[in-house]
């Protein structure tokens, strides 16, 4: 099971809200190479891992990725807080605001809602580990 620690993995305090930056960063939350994809990838792959070492490792990495998800959500939340629709429009991010307001929605920067098609979970442990390497390398 999971339980919650009421603190971030690393402190986040943003002084100046910035809708455009929020629109860029949201893809790291719910985009194809984002933290939601990362956590689901590891936590789903672990069920077919053949030995104790990889079962433990994928459990602990997947859990840490959930902590990353919370930090990225925090970034978007603080960058958006208190902003008006017209500020999003002025920064060419009005489309995000039209769908979500100043909220944190799991989508790519271009507006595609989170899609598990961007992760692979196969019954073959080596294929899974190669997929993990590729996914980590894709994170810019």
């Amino acid at each position: 099971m999971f339980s919650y620690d009421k603190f971030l993995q690393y402190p986040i305090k943003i002084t100046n809200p910035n809708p455009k930056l929020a629109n860029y960063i949201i893809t790291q939350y719910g985009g194809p190479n984002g933290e939601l994809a990362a956590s689901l990838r590891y936590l789903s792959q672990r069920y077919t891992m053949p030995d104790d070492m990889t079962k433990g490792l994928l459990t602990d990495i997947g859990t840490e990725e959930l902590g990353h998800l919370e930090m990225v959500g925090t970034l978007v939340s603080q960058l958006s807080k208190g902003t008006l629709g017209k500020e999003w429009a002025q920064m060419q991010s009005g489309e995000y605001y039209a769908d979500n307001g100043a909220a944190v929605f799991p989508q790519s920067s271009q507006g595609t809602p989170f899609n598990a098609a961007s992760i692979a979970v196969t019954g073959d442990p080596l294929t899974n580990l190669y997929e993990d390497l590729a996914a980590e390398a894709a994170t810019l």
Partner: protein
Amino acid sequence: METGRTELLKKLQSYNFAAYDMLLYLDTHPNDKKAFALFRDLVEKTNKLKAQFEREYGPLRAYSAANFEKFEWYKSPWPWEKEANA
């Protein structure tokens, strides 16, 4: 929020971060005795800081709320709020 809270939280986050990194290392190097000793030390320090923070500023885990006179788990600041990190 006050400086004391922020400083204590940062210290706790630092030790917690280091402890988790050692955990990930040990998952693939379980027989590294030096690493395990360091992990034990970091976890002990993290737990002490968590206990100190909870005594001074309120629960960090839902069940820790049971150690208080009143139920205060739900109270702000929540971690994603600027006030929790300021």
